[in-house]
């Protein structure tokens, strides 16, 4: 019971889950970008499928990361210093992850070239935002040490 009531379980959950959206969003954007460059339709589709699956996995991983983060921050959605900057990048990144996942799940392979380029830009923006949120998260834990 101590494990569930104390901060440790949330620290463990945050530390464990927060790397999923960071790593998988980056990989997803790269897979989709590579898929856009490859001529072979079969290989291209596989890259896009990998991009979709990593995006969904990263988005699903963001939920426990956000929940545990909120608990650790005592439900503070803004804050000061490193926590403030963590949140500045985190909330738009979280919104983008969800939005991109919804868009991909609806559109699937029926996307246009223009739509794909807009998606790719948004995916790299999400990768940047989630990485920046991760950087400031690291500053909260390790900053000043």
């Amino acid at each position, binding site marked *: 019971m101590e494990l569930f009531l104390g901060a440790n379980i949330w620290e463990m959950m945050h530390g464990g889950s927060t790397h999923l959206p960071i790593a998988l969003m980056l990989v997803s954007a790269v897979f989709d970008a590579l898929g856009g460059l490859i001529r072979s339709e079969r290989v291209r589709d596989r890259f896009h499928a990998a991009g979709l699956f990593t995006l969904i996995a990263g988005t699903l991983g963001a939920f426990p990361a956000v929940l545990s983060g909120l608990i650790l921050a005592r*439900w503070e959605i803004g804050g000061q210093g490193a926590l403030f900057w963590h949140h500045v990048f985190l909330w738009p990144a979280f*919104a983008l992850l*969800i939005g*991109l996942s*919804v868009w991909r799940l*609806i559109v699937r392979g029926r996307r*246009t*070239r223009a*739509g794909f380029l807009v998606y790719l830009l948004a995916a790299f923006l999400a990768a940047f935002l989630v990485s920046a949120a991760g950087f400031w998260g690291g500053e909260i834990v390790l900053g000043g040490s």
Partner: protein
Amino acid sequence: MKRGFFGLEFIAALLAVVVASAVVGGALGAANLVRAGIEKARTEVAAGSPARLSEIAAHGQKLFAVNCSHCHADDATGDEGPDLHGLTKSDERIKGIITNGIKGEMPSFAKKLQEADKEALVSFLRSLR
């Protein structure tokens, strides 16, 4: 890939914005609600914090000086009455003694002191070390 952006992709984009806004907005709103609840609970706890208790104890000290110090001495170390430092009796027992007195030893303060006064006296006595 097909040509043209509007159509399915546009509807999907609208849905994506709606879902993302709902989820993130819901998370932010829920966090604010929980935080407000925590702040309210903290405020209520602070009402009974040492600062508040010391205010009550200070009132009790004034009551003690007027009503009790004749027998228990100004510093409550005892004179005719006993030393009141480090009392081990319960709050209710102390209030009972103040209310009823002790036959042949201590008068009753039932008519002179209200319940809040007795609680203030107990707070003051508990503050004695």
